[in-house]
């Protein structure tokens, strides 16, 4: 039986309710929400609207119309960065970013936007004072600070609750990439002073692939990346001013958004704190077990409570890619190896060019699953090493 431990890429499996909601919507309301006014379209539109409300409620967003649906977090990040930044603007980011942030910023450099990258320490931790100093470099406040909340490589959680309010006080836009934290860590856009929040729907929010969203503070009006039909004011040659339509041209994926709604409701029923506690227990067992094995090096803070949802490690003398292949081929265990689309983060923790083996348990994984992975790794290390259920080396 396959053991999936790559939930940082996308959560799998989903709660049964998610499959049912997507299936039901595709069968009963498989029409184009917001296009026309007949009953089925209105039902599909109402469902999309309820999903907007659920997102807003989860992140304490005052107006659900400031929630724009996208196909993933990457699209949301691109919408915000390309839509808000102008030539001459200065942006501060970190050395722990995913390519979803660093590649758009690289492209924006060519358009006259200055990018400052604040280095994290070898555990992936950013010091707030370093971010603040970079944001005020030269005595002039940067236009934006953009940071990942939780690293997809090390799981390191950044202190956004400190950086956000500081940015607000200094008139700097604060944008958070919540790809690894939305649905796992508490996020409150008001108390954390988050102006722009980008997140996937298909990871810790348990929705189907092809879902994501962008939240924009009330007075932010990005230039659209995509132009087209929005279901209203069709005589105008201009895109509408109002969100979400301004940034939602084309047909929305209503079945997937229905699945996302079911996923969010599932997370809320369990409670984000309980989700986190479950994953922390699994990561504790994993970290303990890994430390009993010879030649294992763990990256990131090393304490489960500081790891978000992932643990990265390497095995001495072994290529992570080979380890991942063997885990899949011989043991039926799915983990992610390599650079995880975050080369700068690997540069920061010293794992270029081979990267790491990344394990990211999901809500439905168990302690037995962790033990199975540890047993497989023990087996791979040779006949002289084994690990008991308690993690003791024998």
């Amino acid at each position: 039986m396959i053991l999936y431990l790559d939930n940082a890429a996308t959560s799998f499996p989903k709660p049964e309710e998610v499959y049912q909601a997507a299936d039901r919507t595709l069968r009963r309301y498989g029409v184009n929400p917001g296009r026309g006014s007949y009953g089925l379209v209105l039902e599909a539109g109402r469902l999309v609207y309820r999903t907007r409300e659920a997102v807003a409620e989860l992140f304490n967003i005052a107006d659900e119309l400031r929630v724009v649906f996208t196909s993933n977090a990457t699209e949301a990040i691109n919408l915000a960065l390309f839509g808000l930044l102008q030539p001459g603007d200065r942006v501060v980011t970190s050395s722990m970013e995913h390519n979803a942030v660093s590649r758009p910023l690289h492209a924006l450099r060519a358009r006259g936007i200055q990018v400052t990258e604040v280095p994290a320490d070898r555990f992936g931790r950013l010091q707030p004072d370093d971010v603040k100093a970079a944001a005020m470099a030269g005595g002039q406040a940067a236009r934006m600070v953009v940071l990942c909340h939780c690293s997809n490589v090390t799981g390191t959680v950044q202190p956004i609750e400190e950086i956000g309010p500081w940015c607000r006080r200094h008139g700097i836009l604060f944008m958070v990439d919540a790809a690894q934290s939305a649905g796992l860590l508490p996020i409150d856009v008001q108390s954390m002073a988050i102006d722009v929040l980008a997140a996937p729907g298909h990871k810790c929010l348990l929705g189907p692939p092809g879902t994501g969203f962008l939240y924009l503070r009330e007075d932010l009006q990005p230039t659209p990346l995509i132009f087209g039909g929005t279901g209203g004011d069709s005589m105008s040659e201009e895109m509408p001013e109002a969100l979400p339509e301004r940034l939602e041209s084309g047909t929305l994926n209503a079945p997937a958004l229905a699945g996302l709604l079911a996923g969010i409701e599932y997370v809320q029923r369990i409670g984000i704190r309980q989700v986190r506690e479950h994953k922390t227990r699994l990561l504790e067992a994993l970290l303990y077990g890994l430390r009993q094995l010879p030649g294992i090096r763990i990256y990131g803070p090393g304490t489960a409570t500081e790891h978000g949802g992932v643990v990265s490690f390497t095995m001495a003398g072994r290529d992570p890619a080979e380890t991942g292949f063997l885990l899949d081929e011989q043991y039926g265990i799915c983990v992610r190896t390599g650079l995880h689309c975050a080369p700068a983060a690997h540069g920061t923790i010293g794992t270029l060019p081979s990267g790491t083996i990344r394990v990211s348990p999901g809500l439905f994984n168990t302690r037995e699953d962790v033990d199975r992975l540890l047993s497989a790794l023990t087996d791979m290390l040779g006949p002289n090493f084994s690990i008991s259920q308690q993690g003791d080396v024998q």
Partner: protein
Amino acid sequence: MIPENDIIALFKAPAVAMKAERLLRKAALDCRLIPAPREVAAGCSMALRCPAAQLSTMIRELNRLQLTPRAMYRKSASGYQPVTPSAEGEYHDPVSG
């Protein structure tokens, strides 16, 4: 399609109309979204229809929710009569004030 005296409200975007319908229904108003009549809106806009008897409540709720319509009309025998906003941009029931 629209009974005489019924009110229709147009909003700046379809999602706003959707929000208005959802919140007004929560307030027990008998409103529903309809295709906007061509006499008052070009293209494929949506309008929110509400019975005339609920006009005062509708206006009060929309003002409270800060969901100001971009236009409101009352259906009459001769067509759609504008319900005009005050100088502050708020709508007032032309009958009850």
